[in-house]
């Protein structure tokens, strides 16, 4: 199977990262030590240009996001976007006094900033992915972020899971605003999805509440992450390759007449009215993300794979289009796009 559905990095980590993970495995009869975590936190602090005390490690960002939403939505209104990527958070969000979801809609998937600011008349916790998954759109700008943070009713958490691909961050505001926090991950750009390493860069208010968050991660995870941070050049090369491939895949899809919604990050959002496209591709051994299950019909998200995987995807989607039996398509939809 070719997996183009999880926004993973198609390139494995370099050999020395794998060696470090194996070294960690050799020691798994022992508990992880604080010095290992501290070492990793020092490197992350230096990588992000923040103080080490602001870094909280987590086994995958989902774990800490659950905890944070559970703690900070208590008695507050929770603002999120729809769609968003926050799996299995239903129980956590039920703590909130109220939930307001902002529907992002095509073609621009913009956030209604004015309405969000108007919502800040009472204690509010805002969680936004920037760029958004699955649209890939940058939803925030610095002026808007500062307007939120200057309101004493607001807590803001920005998930920057795709930071390395888009280079858009508001990390400089962390020292200034205690009500601000950023979630990051090493799953994507650092090719460590299988190890699940997330981290959180917290403003003072968040830090105070999370002082007792578990500090230990499995030894192989820490060792691999430390080594990965020492191989920044390899990471940057992969990012360039992925972005280059993304442009190539987008161009080829456009030639096929597939509707593309330009976005950032390592995935592509398309709308395609060929019924059961995802199923047809699965039959050919390719998995893409079918967003119409929970969101708008005809929308799919495609991660960037290795060049040969992308070629296979382009070939199969091209074949599906060619063989497309037009009786399955509504006449008014045939004119523009497949």
């Amino acid at each position, binding site marked *: 199977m070719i997996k183009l559905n999880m926004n993973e990095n198609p390139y494995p980590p370099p050999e020395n990262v794998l060696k470090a993970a194996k070294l960690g495995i050799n020691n798994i009869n022992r508990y992880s030590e604080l010095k290992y975590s501290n070492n990793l936190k020092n490197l992350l602090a230096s990588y992000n240009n923040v103080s080490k005390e602001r870094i909280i490690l987590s086994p995958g960002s989902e774990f800490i996001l659950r905890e944070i939403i559970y703690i900070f939505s208590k008695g507050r209104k929770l603002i999120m976007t729809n*769609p968003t990527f926050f799996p299995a958070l*239903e129980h956590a969000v039920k703590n909130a006094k109220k939930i307001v*979801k902002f*529907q992002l809609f095509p073609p621009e998937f913009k956030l209604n900033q004015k*309405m969000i600011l108007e919502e800040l008349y009472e204690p509010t916790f805002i969680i936004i992915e920037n760029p958004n998954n699955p649209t890939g759109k940058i939803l925030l700008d610095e002026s808007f972020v500062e307007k939120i943070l200057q309101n004493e009713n607001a807590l803001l958490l920005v998930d920057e899971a795709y930071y390395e691909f888009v280079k858009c961050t508001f990390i400089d505001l962390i020292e200034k605003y205690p009500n601000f926090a950023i979630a990051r991950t090493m799953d994507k750009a650092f090719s460590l999805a299988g190890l699940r390493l997330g981290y959180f860069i917290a403003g003072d208010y968040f830090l105070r509440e999370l002082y007792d968050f578990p500090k230990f991660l499995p030894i192989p995870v820490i060792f691999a992450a430390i080594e990965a941070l020492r191989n920044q050049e390899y990471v940057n090369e992969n990012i360039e390759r992925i972005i280059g491939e993304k442009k190539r895949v987008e161009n080829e899809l456009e030639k096929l007449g597939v509707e593309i919604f330009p976005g950032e990050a390592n995935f592509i959002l398309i709308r395609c009215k060929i019924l059961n496209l995802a199923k047809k591709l*699965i039959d050919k051994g390719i*998995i893409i993300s079918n967003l119409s299950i929970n969101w708008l*019909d005809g929308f799919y998200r495609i991660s960037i794979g290795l060049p040969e995987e992308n070629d296979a995807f382009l070939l199969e989607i091209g074949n599906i289009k060619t063989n497309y039996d037009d009786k399955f398509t509504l006449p008014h939809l045939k004119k523009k796009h497949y």
Partner: protein
Amino acid sequence: MLEVGLIVNPISGMGGSVGLKGTDGNTYKKAIELGAKQVTPQRVKATLSLIKRNDIYLLVAPGKMGEDYIKKFNFKYKVVGKIGEKTSAEDTKRIAKEMMKRAINLLIFFGGDGTARDIYDAIGISVPVVAIPSGVKMFSSVFALSPYAAAKMIDSYTEKSIEKEVLDIDEDAFRNNKLAATLYGYLKVPEIEALLQEGKEPSIMSKPEKENKEEVAKYIVENMEKDILYILGPGTTVKGITDELDVDKTLLGIDSVYNKELVGKDLNEKGLMELIKKYKKIKIIVTPIGGNGFTFGRGSKQITPEVLRLVGENNIIIVSTPGKISKLECLRVDTGDAEVDRRLRKFVKVVTGCNEETVIEVK
């Protein structure tokens, strides 16, 4: 054994290939003249060949409306009803009713929006259906995505079902590339959407649709204010509110309640205007039509521009399940009055649960 009805609209989809966009009414004859060929048999064959469960006992319509297609398969079956050489909507309705009387568990039908309307006329929401699209127009959300999805629904059938919209599409307008859709009714379909997932997806809607409707209804009822007349639009989401109030609702009509008591049933514009004159404070509760997002102008024509002007755009409560709203790019209004439409076109908050709202644009 699972007793399953099977009805095929043999002429469904024939208009498509000859550019007629449907075979409703007399257009079928024109389709034949233009050389249209049957497209349904392939769909029937594809679906039946994908069904894996072997505890099905089929009650099938005769000849080309069912029996002809199943002979090649190993299903146990019995033929229900009679048909002549030419078939019509009346055959579909009559046979569906007969099947319902024989207490089938599930009804499978092949056709388009027109067939869905005939099935709704015959059986309403008494029996769950699996609708396989083989027509030219399949805008109703009742349809399964494909024969594959339909076979999965049949294989995984349990008694859990949800209601989906049946739309009435104006074929003449459709032929001129205009989509004029009104809500016609509802059919029950098995609720197994999660089983149709293709690959791992994060789910933001883990609750069943029915529970979501009940949650919205409870929240609205708990927050209903005293001495306000509530005008209630059509649809099952709004019906959830009257169910919660233990008041009888006209599913496709407009009713109204005051201090949690029914004060108007199946109201037209005149009836609404009389109530508006009588009561001082008024709110309207509506739900968008699934698929196209219309809140006013389709399915609730009784709430005229004049009614909306008198009630005011700030006294409208829109309710929906999260599942329905997530599938809409926007809400829509088309009241026929440009000024009223302009006032309604803005970002609105839709009640999607207990203390839960979704902000969406009205276009």
